[in-house]
């Protein structure tokens, strides 16, 4: 043991680590230098150190996923009850009431010869309709749709990822049987027959069951959602392999047309960006550490499936819908001018987790944890002929969470280069600031009637626990009644860990963060609560319109796949 300690000390001296570095890295115990079983160990360091083969930055354009197109008919036609060949186990709750006006058929497939970067070999990934990221859905409130998800993934697939899927439409107001509950996964074939799963999305504003608002509460309109695989224990692997895409909902206000409604940049000027960090092995093939527990961090930063792309833009306003696609990294995003590092380029922050804020907020950075979204307006009109970068300046070395502080401008991860080189064009969008619609803030009566529940997130015996329990999908940890509202206290008891906690079904409103009023941005409607070490966040949720099972889980998808999850059910009134 003494010899190990001495070796460790020598190693620390070689590494030139100061005492402060040691404390930061968690390698100094109260009694001095740490001794492990057989020498110093820091798997954390190994994860952070993953060094993929080199790739030249900003030599390929950033693709924009195609818009998903409907089909005329599905064969066999959708039915309320699960039908032969369907992976669904429960009848549709609302198919008859909200018959789909548009039908879609989407295939989860293996994609061969996919290129993350010209400097890496072509490789095999998975994608919806063969696209990585998947096609973007454009839906509208009041226009119900049904998506038939067909699992065409190869049954004997070798390597990370499992060819069994349950597709979650993140933040949608969806009946349980169409929500993508983690245990609702289905395989690609059974007995040689192809399997599918019909997911019915009513596209109704929450609150339509209330007689005073039969069309729902207009303050509940959602804008930027994403869909991704949610197969229990394999979500990180399957999403990392490519099973994710955007889903935008438009309304009479957020119309997608910059000449109507809120007049936000639309069409070609409404650009989704999914951020996902990856690791590649010595052959340049995508790599996922199957024996990692804390979180997988990549050293290659993809946007819409490409490593460090550029995007040519016109000198005008754009709407960017930015998503942290995980699996484990947090981002703090800035716009950086490498020729003038002290220049501050603002974002106009219009929505949080895809939900428009009551008023837009001008910010110089946005913070995203896994699966959080932000919609921002960036005005390139005075930047013609120049290039600016979207830069992540949040340091993070392990799946534990961000390590604290912010990196200097130009010292972080450059994600996308915006080249303002396209010609001047018209801009029908309105300049900021924007006033949208008020949040559905709970009334005093609602707050006093709301039951409070505590959810604690911790680890025990190298496993995650929620309310001190291991995940068992047969155990219903909370059972709010349909039509009621509750206050949920989300408490991180897990020491040094950060956890982005996601609650399915209706988005919530944050009432407090560590006893204080949340920021204007966080007070907007959200579906993910970032819990830093020891954080306590109180949220208000309404449970309306549908019943059934839903999960609450950590969206560091590696934590999620190690069962940091609980089931709760909405029970009929």
């Amino acid at each position, binding site marked *: 043991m003494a010899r190990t300690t001495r070796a460790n000390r020598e190693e620390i001296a070689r590494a030139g680590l100061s005492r402060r570095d040691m404390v930061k890295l968690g390698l100094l115990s109260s009694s001095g230098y*740490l001794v492990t079983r057989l020498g110093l160990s*820091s798997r954390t*360091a190994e994860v952070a150190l993953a060094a993929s083969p080199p790739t030249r930055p900003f030599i390929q354009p950033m693709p924009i996923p195609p818009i998903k197109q409907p089909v005329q008919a599905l064969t066999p036609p959708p039915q309320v009850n699960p039908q032969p060949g369907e992976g669904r186990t429960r009848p549709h709750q609302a198919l008859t009431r909200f018959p789909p006006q548009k039908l879609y058929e989407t295939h989860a497939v293996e994609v061969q010869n996919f290129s993350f970067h010209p400097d890496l070999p072509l490789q095999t990934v998975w994608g919806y309709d063969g696209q990585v990221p998947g096609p973007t859905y454009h839906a509208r409130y009041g226009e119900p749709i049904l998506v038939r998800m067909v699992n065409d993934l190869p049954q004997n697939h070798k390597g990370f990822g499992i060819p069994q899927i349950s597709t979650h439409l993140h933040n949608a107001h969806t009946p349980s049987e169409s929500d993508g509950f983690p245990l609702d996964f289905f395989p690609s074939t059974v007995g040689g027959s192809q399997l599918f799963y019909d997911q019915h999305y009513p596209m109704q504003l929450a609150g339509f069951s209330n007689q005073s608002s039969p069309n729902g509460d207009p303050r509940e309109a959602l804008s930027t959602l994403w869909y991704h695989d949610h197969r229990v224990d394999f979500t990180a692997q399957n999403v990392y392999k490519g099973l994710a895409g955007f889903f935008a909902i438009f309304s009479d206000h957020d119309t997608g047309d910059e000449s109507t409604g809120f007049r936000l940049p639309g069409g070609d000027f409404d650009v989704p960006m999914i951020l996902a960090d990856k690791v590649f092995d010595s052959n340049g093939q995508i790599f996922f550490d199957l024996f990692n527990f804390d979180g997988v961090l990549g050293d290659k930063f993809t946007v819409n499936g490409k490593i460090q792309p550029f995007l040519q833009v016109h000198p005008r306003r754009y709407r960017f819908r930015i998503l942290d696609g995980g699996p484990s990294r947090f981002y703090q995003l800035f716009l950086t001018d490498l020729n003038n590092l002290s220049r501050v380029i603002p974002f106009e922050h219009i929505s949080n987790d895809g939900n428009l804020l009551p008023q837009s907020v001008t910010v110089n950075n946005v913070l995203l944890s896994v699966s959080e979204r932000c919609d921002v307006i960036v005005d390139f009109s005075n930047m013609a002929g120049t290039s600016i970068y979207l830069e992540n300046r949040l340091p993070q070395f392990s799946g534990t969470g961000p390590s604290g502080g912010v990196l200097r401008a130009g010292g972080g991860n450059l994600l996308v280069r915006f080249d303002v080189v396209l010609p001047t064009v018209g801009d029908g969008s309105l300049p900021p600031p924007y006033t949208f619609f008020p949040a559905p803030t709970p009334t005093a009566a609602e707050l006093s009637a709301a039951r409070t529940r505590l959810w604690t997130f911790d680890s025990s015996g190298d496993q995650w626990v929620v309310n001190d329990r291991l995940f068992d999908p047969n155990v219903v940890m909370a059972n709010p009644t349909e039509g009621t509202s509750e206050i949920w206290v989300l408490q991180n008891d897990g020491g040094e860990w950060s956890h982005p906690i996601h609650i399915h079904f209706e988005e919530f409103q944050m009432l407090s963060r560590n006893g204080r009023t949340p920021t204007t941005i966080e007070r907007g409607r959200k579906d993910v609560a970032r819990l830093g070490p020891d954080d306590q966040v109180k949220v208000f949720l309404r449970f309306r319109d549908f019943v059934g099972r839903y999960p609450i889980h950590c969206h560091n998808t590696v934590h999620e796949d190690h069962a940091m999850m609980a089931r709760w059910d909405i029970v009929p009134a």
Partner: protein
Amino acid sequence: MTLTRRASLMSLFAAPAAGALFAWSTNGPASATNPTPKVPPAGGFGAQYFPNVLLRTHEGEEVRFYDDLLQGKSVIINMMYTLCQDGRCGVITSNLVALQRELGDRVGRDIFMYSISLKPLEDTPRMLLEYAARQHVGPGWQFLTGDPADIELLRRRLGFINVNPVKDADINSHTGAVRFGNERLERWCMAPGGTNPRYLATLVESALL
């Protein structure tokens, strides 16, 4: 400190000391002259990843981890020690006994169960044999011990670690997590060993069989 600077410090720091355990080399523990590669190895999670260390079963048999226990098989793996003071290892073992019953005669045929001792010096084959008998462990499930350095290498490669080095260094720490894997398909996941054994059986059946 910039990201690059920190990363390079951590790189030095991660260089193996006494018996570096997280190198990806094929020939057991790396040496100071064979530092941890930064680039993940090509070839996935097969023979070159899993240590082919010599182990002894609770029945006294000598086996190679990769060749004899893992290659081409579907497996359930946990880590424990017999003289667990707070009884947690026993609770997990008895839960896995319930899982074994759920899986029936597929254990030993389609699926193999392994419990690797976290205290290999203490857990002799005889101790493990007595423990398995006490716990009513059925056929198709082997308790394993071996050289401490080999066991430590296995522990790391199989990811039974706590990223908090203080907790990871605690020799009395134990894990309730259970690995499931299909080596042939390079398909691996982890689940809480203490949860409902019927749910565990669902996970095993859907992911591995």
